[in-house]
């Protein structure tokens, strides 16, 4: 299934060996959009790298730029004001909803349900409007800064966000109805693509894929960062069967995560210190702290982050060009780089027609895989 294929969700090749209709062996072939971001970032300032990190996984840009910013703050030793952490949390969770909507909008057509695509993209436009108010552009916002955020919440953002999220929470029920009452969807996704939790953890699969198997691992509570502990939330875990998590469980986890993220954003808008109506000018110390711009040799920074697809991580080694203004090495951990070979293994034993269902349910995003 070559690089140009409507169902591969990105540019990669999946070589399949079949026996009749049954898949016998698979081999993924990546690297079609390998851009060498890790090498390019060695010639960029710390603030310039944020723009590259947005473009790593383009469906979920905010989570990747925040993932880098936390690692850069670890390297440079910066403490972030609390209001900025709340604003970051709002941006990250809205982005998580948008990413899952994009996934659901692409997964429906894989199964055969084309109407869900326009519904989900309609809701995603709502989320992108909110993110556009925060960040300034539709997709690559370059929103966080080292030490805080670029801008405060705009005037009236809180009301608009609450209205849109309440509408969104109603609409999720429509999607669930569309899928759960569709026999075709249930037949094509239940009992297909079993993934055992022990194997998944040993592989390094994390995020919604592993939570679908009943394992309660989420970086947001296990290696805490940001202000998630101030909010009332639970990781969304699904009850799967003893054979493992199938595609239906992975779908349900993401729908529950969308609900949970929406409720987190509503709580954060209530609890933000200073209130959601106060506006601080960009550069105000309440939303951004002063950060050094050089990192001497011998220092390093790393941070694990819960991306929409799993656990992402940045490792930065200081002491590069410009007497430390640029990193010496930027190393990016992509959850999909590990999950795609595992998902390819999950397909063995099923029919060729199940391949898009299984592949889509793991939510591949090739941008972060190929870096």
């Amino acid at each position, binding site marked *: 299934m070559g*690089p140009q294929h*409507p169902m591969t969700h990105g*540019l990669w090749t999946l070589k399949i060996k079949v026996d009749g209709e049954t898949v016998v062996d698979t081999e993924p072939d990546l690297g079609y959009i390998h851009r060498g971001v890790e090498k*390019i970032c060695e010639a960029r300032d710390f603030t310039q790298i944020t723009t590259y990190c947005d473009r790593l996984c383009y469906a979920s840009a905010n989570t990747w730029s925040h993932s880098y910013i936390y690692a850069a703050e670890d390297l440079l030793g910066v403490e972030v004001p609390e209001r900025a952490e709340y604003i970051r949390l709002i941006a990250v969770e809205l982005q998580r909803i948008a990413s899952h909507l994009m996934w659901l*909008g692409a997964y429906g057509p894989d199964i055969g349900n084309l109407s869900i695509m326009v519904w989900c993209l309609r809701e995603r436009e709502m989320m992108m409007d909110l993110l556009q108010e925060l960040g300034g552009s539709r*997709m690559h916002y370059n929103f966080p800064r080292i030490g805080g955020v670029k801008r405060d919440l705009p005037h009236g953002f809180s009301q608009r966000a609450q209205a849109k999220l309440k509408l969104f929470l109603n609409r999720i029920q429509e999607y669930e109805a569309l899928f759960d009452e569709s026999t075709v969807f249930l037949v094509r996704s239940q009992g297909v693509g079993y993934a055992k939790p022990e194997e998944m953890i040993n592989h390094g699969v994390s995020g919604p894929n592993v939570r679908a198997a009943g394992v309660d691992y989420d970086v947001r509570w296990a290696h805490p960062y940001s202000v998630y502990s101030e909010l009332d939330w639970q990781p969304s875990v699904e009850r799967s069967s003893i054979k493992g998590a199938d595609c239906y469980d992975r779908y349900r986890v993401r729908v529950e995560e969308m609900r949970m993220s929406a409720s987190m954003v509503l709580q954060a808008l209530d609890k933000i210190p200073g209130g959601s109506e106060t506006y601080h000018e960009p550069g105000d110390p309440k939303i951004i702290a002063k950060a050094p711009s050089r990192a001497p040799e011998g220092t390093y920074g790393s941070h694990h982050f819960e991306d929409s697809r799993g656990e992402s991580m940045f490792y930065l080694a200081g002491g590069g060009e410009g007497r430390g203004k640029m990193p010496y090495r930027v190393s990016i951990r992509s959850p999909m780089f590990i999950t795609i070979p595992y998902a390819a293994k999950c397909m063995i034993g099923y029919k060729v027609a199940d391949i898009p269902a299984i592949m889509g349910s793991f939510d591949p995003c090739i*941008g972060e895989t190929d870096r």
Partner: protein
Amino acid sequence: MSDEPPNFSVFNSRILVDTVGDVTDEALKASRMKEVIGVLGGRLFNWGQRKSLFPLHLGIKCCALEMAAAGASRFDAERFGVFFRSSPRQCDVLLVNGPVSKKFADPIVRLWEQMPEPKWCIAMGECAISGGPYFQSYNILEGVDTVIPVDVYIPGCPPRPEALIDGFGKLREKIIRIGGVPSEVRPMSEAPLIVGDE
């Protein structure tokens, strides 16, 4: 194969088609009908293509999401006749929406060659125009126009869906301006257009 000549004659439909084609071709050339049919056919294809450009279902990178958004509810591109097809044999437009890496250079040229004439290429986004933010990369070509002739450039990173629809509009204007079917050699009057460059 055997040396002696076959002692039967094979009725081969391929030979029949070729012979008839050659004879008709000569006749048409002699009576100057071939040029007329060529021009009329070109005008017909051109008229047909103006309002129904079928791009290929190719999503390379981020601009592919804006392409999907352009085809979705808010910026419906289908009302302009733009309908995405999966097979290159059924497409008119190759919409390149991301950086072309060295590994992908060969497949994209193959996709371009598989598309039947008359065909067009739109380079969407900075990465396809000139390598974009990755112009220094060891693995990315500096723009898709190093391997494929491009007709319309749409700048932006990513360009808004409105810009993409405007790009299709500019391509339509270019098709109308050409009037016939583009030949293999693209003369200077068919210079590439840049959206936003009025």
